[in-house]
């Protein structure tokens, strides 16, 4: 391709980036607008920037810091916990023919069911074991989607690792467990990082379960954001400020592990 068409490609790429990030840019701009200038009946591109929306986030009635902390804890535990069972789980599924069909199928079905299917029974179960409105309770609920997702991505990744590696180790007398943790685990690292990021994003952004299962102690960042829809007014500015703050850690995290992310999500494209 010649130089000129390359330039057009870059222009196209920039345009696409702008279009798809329009909602985010809108969120960021709105987060600096004063409340009175958000709902206007005519188009206006200038406004007097203000920090009042960000100040509102950390006022006494909206303990937003606590919500962030809750979200971090919940997302981390549900992600790491899911990985803890999913690494051996996906290994088992990918390496043992008998196991594969039934379990993988079953796990895929769970992943596919809408959350509303689990809503009421899980609520009652959490009540029975007294975990409603607690961090462990919500973590447990989040396992319904983090575990299947982890097993799935890791499974496709594991299938790309040739079996010959294990076979030679097995001849040397290593057990299955040793093989998993000494040989497979390091090879699996990009997959694990990718799964970590995906699960973290999904847990961080989950709203439905968090709304139903928390009220005070374990309120997460999304439910906290929805609290700005008060009876007085929808505080668009504060909602946008909260969203801006909650997306920044995600972007930084993704930026740091971009290399692994791309290597971990090939989904069986390598032959």
């Amino acid at each position, binding site marked *: 391709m010649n130089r000129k068409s390359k330039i057009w490609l870059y222009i196209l790429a920039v345009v696409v980036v702008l279009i798809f990030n329009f*909602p*985010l840019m809108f969120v960021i701009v709105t987060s600096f607008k004063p409340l009175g200038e958000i709902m206007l009946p005519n188009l206006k591109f200038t406004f007097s920037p203000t920090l009042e929306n960000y100040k509102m986030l950390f006022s006494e009635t909206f303990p937003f810091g606590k919500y962030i902390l809750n979200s971090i804890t919940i997302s981390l535990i549900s992600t790491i916990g899911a990985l803890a069972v999913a690494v051996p789980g996906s290994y*088992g599924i990918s390496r043992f023919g008998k196991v594969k069909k039934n379990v993988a199928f079953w796990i895929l079905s769970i992943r596919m069911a809408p959350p509303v299917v689990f809503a009421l029974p899980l609520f009652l179960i959490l009540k029975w074991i007294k975990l409603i409105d607690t961090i462990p309770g919500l973590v447990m609920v989040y396992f319904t989607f983090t575990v299947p997702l982890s097993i799935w991505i890791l499974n496709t990744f594991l299938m790309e690792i040739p079996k010959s590696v294990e076979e030679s180790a097995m001849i040397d007398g290593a057990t299955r467990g040793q093989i998993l943790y000494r040989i497979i685990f390091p090879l699996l690292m990009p997959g694990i990082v990718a799964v970590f990021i995906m699960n973290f994003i999904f847990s961080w952004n989950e709203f439905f379960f968090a709304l139903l299962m928390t009220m005070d102690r374990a309120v997460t960042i999304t439910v906290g954001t929805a609290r700005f829809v008060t009876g007085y007014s929808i505080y668009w500015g504060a909602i946008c400020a909260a969203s801006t703050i909650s997306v920044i850690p995600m972007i930084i995290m993704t930026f740091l592990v971009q290399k692994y992310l*791309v290597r971990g999500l090939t989904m069986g494209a390598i032959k």
Partner: protein
Amino acid sequence: MRNDRGWRFVIPSVILLGFVALFPFIFSLYISFTESTAYNIYHGKFVGLGNYISLFKDIKFWDSLRVTLLYVALSVSIEMILGFFLALLVDSLDRYQRLFMILLIIPMMIAPLVYGIIFKLLYNSIYGPIPLFFRSAFNIELQILNKPFRALLAMVIVDVFQWTSFVFLITYSALQALPKEPFEAAMIDGATYWKRVRYVLLPLIRPAFVVIMIFRLMDSFKTFDQIFVITGGGPGTATTTLSLYTYFLMFTRYNFGKAAALTVIILMVVIVITNLVFKRFFREVSAVE
């Protein structure tokens, strides 16, 4: 290779998922045969298949099924096509590929709830920037949420805005992992760019594409947050998906029996679809072995 001890590794996942998913399912199954309601959750009158029959007679159930399928078909196909071309575009850049990649996957890092709230503002007919823009630029009164199909399309657009990035990310990752030799060979043969894409690249990333499609199918089938925030299922029942309908049965009507029957039906539908997908594609994906 020894096949007998594979279960050992799978047991923790199975126990955990059994607790958080199988147990709720059994509970739902039990409730679905009773006339369970808010004042009588556990000891509702046994009605056999009554709830299922009343669902099959319920036109709103069929409506919501139709809406869901339409929503899933539209959003997934648009996302797959857009995401694929975006991946091709970024992959063909010489420099700054990673920067563009990060920028393009930002949408999937934002909560669907936030997309819901923002598009609710953007779509508003009085002060929403989108109708305002059309009014001042073209003097058109753009009415977005007033007609059934238009409202559904508006929901699809929100989904596309957010989840094209997911398709893009995985397609791009797959493209990065492809071996370069077939392309070079095709290039030497003088094949044009689009021919190379069609005959070399597409077959190679097909397995990855299938996995992405499965993921998108699953997730758009489950969509709840944005629709609930923007339209709440309206106008009329035009955007009431199965998720929303179940939600209304469960938490507005407190008709737990019928809601549970619906969840069981949804699970059945899910299992059938999964089974089809599985039979058709899983072997393909795992053919690597």
